[in-house]
């Protein structure tokens, strides 16, 4: 698969991924008669409530019962519909995992799972509501596609691609407003990596909004004369292992970064790919085998070690 080369800079524009989710549901509903939204009583958090207000005939409240919601979605999908599930990532990944396994992933039905409030930054709700192992869990599930967008533009683009794909898709999204870095006309291709900063000394692989923090890390490194090659990996599964190996070979040093556990997430996936194709010294930035806590976003990023400074420090260790 071809890698996209799209140098990105961080401007002033902000948008929340969940707002893009709410807006794009309306867009999908208007272009595809198969699309329905199922909510687990969190629509006014996930922003799926826009559908309930503006396209009520396409919105089904399933109540606080995720296991049933996943099963209902499977039944609808088996009849030719494309259900989109709205709830928090922590519940969609854990509470109904067996339902996802047996009636969605095994029969490969087109259920689209939108995990809102993924990662540590969940609005001071703490470890019960922070989901930092969803990439690991979802990518171990056969037939699943796993996507973690960088910003609101990529959420929309990924949703369009996911809606058009045949099987189940998990999209992990964040809660709070964050920089919009992609151009409005960006189109998503499942599996494609994006080189967002060209460099020669160290390769940084990142996913989700963490990639924005890696652009900041690249700026910190540049101030020291270190040239970072930053690759955004929005699709963790299917992973473009060839592109990962090629980008690693370019510098001979690899850092991975994610708002997610280092066990089995992007860092794990990259390590697996490089271990077979291109063994490379590497450091993994992410949550280090622990649960989170409720706190302000900046405090969480610092305490759990995923700030731009942490990413830059890991790169320096490899030089």
């Amino acid at each position: 698969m071809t890698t996209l080369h799209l140098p990105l800079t961080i401007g002033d524009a902000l948008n929340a991924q969940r707002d893009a989710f709410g807006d794009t549901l309306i867009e999908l509903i208007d272009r595809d008669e198969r699309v329905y939204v199922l909510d687990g009583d969190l629509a006014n958090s996930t922003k799926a409530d826009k559908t309930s207000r503006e396209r009520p005939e396409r919105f089904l409240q399933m109540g606080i019962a995720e296991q049933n919601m996943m099963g209902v979605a499977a039944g609808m999908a088996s009849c030719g519909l494309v259900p989109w599930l709205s709830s928090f990532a922590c519940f969609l990944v854990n509470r109904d995992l067996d339902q996802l396994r047996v009636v969605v992933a095994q029969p490969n039905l087109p259920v689209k799972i939108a995990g809102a409030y993924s990662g540590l930054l969940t609005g001071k709700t703490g470890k019960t509501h922070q989901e930092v192992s969803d990439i690991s869990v979802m990518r171990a599930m056969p037939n699943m596609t796993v996507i973690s967008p960088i910003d609101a533009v990529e959420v929309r683009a990924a949703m369009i691609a996911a809606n058009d794909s045949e099987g189940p898709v998990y999209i992990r999204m964040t809660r709070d407003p964050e920089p919009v870095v992609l151009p409005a006309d960006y189109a998503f291709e499942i599996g494609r990596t994006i080189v967002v900063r060209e460099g020669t000394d160290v390769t940084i692989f990142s996913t989700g909004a963490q990639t924005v923090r890696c652009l900041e890390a690249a700026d910190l490194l540049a101030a020291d004369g270190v040239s970072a090659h930053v690759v955004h990996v929005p699709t963790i599964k299917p992973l473009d292992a060839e592109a990962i190996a090629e980008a690693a070979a370019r510098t001979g040093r690899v850092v991975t970064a994610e708002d997610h556990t280092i066990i089995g997430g992007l860092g794990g996936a990259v390590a697996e790919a490089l271990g077979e194709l291109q063994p490379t010294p590497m450091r993994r930035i992410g949550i280090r085998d622990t649960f989170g806590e409720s706190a302000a976003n900046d405090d969480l990023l610092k305490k759990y070690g995923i700030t731009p400074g942490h990413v830059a420090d890991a790169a320096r260790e490899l030089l």
Partner: protein
Amino acid sequence: MSLAPDRLTELKRQAIHLRRLVVESVHHAGAGHLGGPMSAADMLIALYFEVLNIDPNDPHKADRDRFILSKGHSSIGLYSALALRGYFPIEELKTFDAIDSRLQGHPAMDLLPGIDMSSGSLGQGLSPGLGMALAARLKGESFHTYVMLGDGDSQEGQIWEAALVASRYQVNNLTAILDLNGLQQYGWSTEAGYGELARKPPQENPEARWQSFGWNTISIDGHDMDQFIDACQQARDHLDGPTVLIARTVKGKGISYMENDFNWHSKPVTDEDLKQAQDELAAQEAALA
């Protein structure tokens, strides 16, 4: 309305054939579930030969009635019904549980045409049934969805999540069939030290439970095909919400040594077991004539 006597006799013969195919298949495979398929046998035959609007030659046709076996471990009963109805050759039942077979230990919709939903992890069947019923309503299609539940199966909380949401949406194109055979794999067994007071069936007071969840209930003898077919019609005619048929059955029905013995939930069939079962079923078939 009762079936014509000849038709009822024919369905009874098919149910005997189904029971024989179940025992023979489990004997051949060296593994499999028996008690559940036997308790469901008469209802499975009535569904596939009389109730469901289906076409074995077009198993994916859009307006077909749907059937989900939530108690997926009774798969060999469903496979035998499908084979008898002409979905695939009866000979294929010999591949049950074997490598590369479409007839997996639990039903897989991605492998076998005629399976409308995968199942096997208990408690999961009613939710997809609700999804199908909602899809029919949303798409303006007239098919009806039937879900067969087990009484052990119904110990899973998801069944009751689905029951709550189904009655909230007042779906009248969804019928649950509770195969109330009174046993589960092990349960609160006296063998395990539970006293007789604890040794209760998997579900108690099912009528009151389902009614309290907003469902219309019809109680029947699950081995009386006339009653069952009539109850399915009553369920379709009930337009104010979902209906559950509470079908009292005997686990292991039709094979004397299996009846009401939880040990026959799942067990290899020996050559002697097979011979006795075949003899008993042959006697039942002879008595029909």
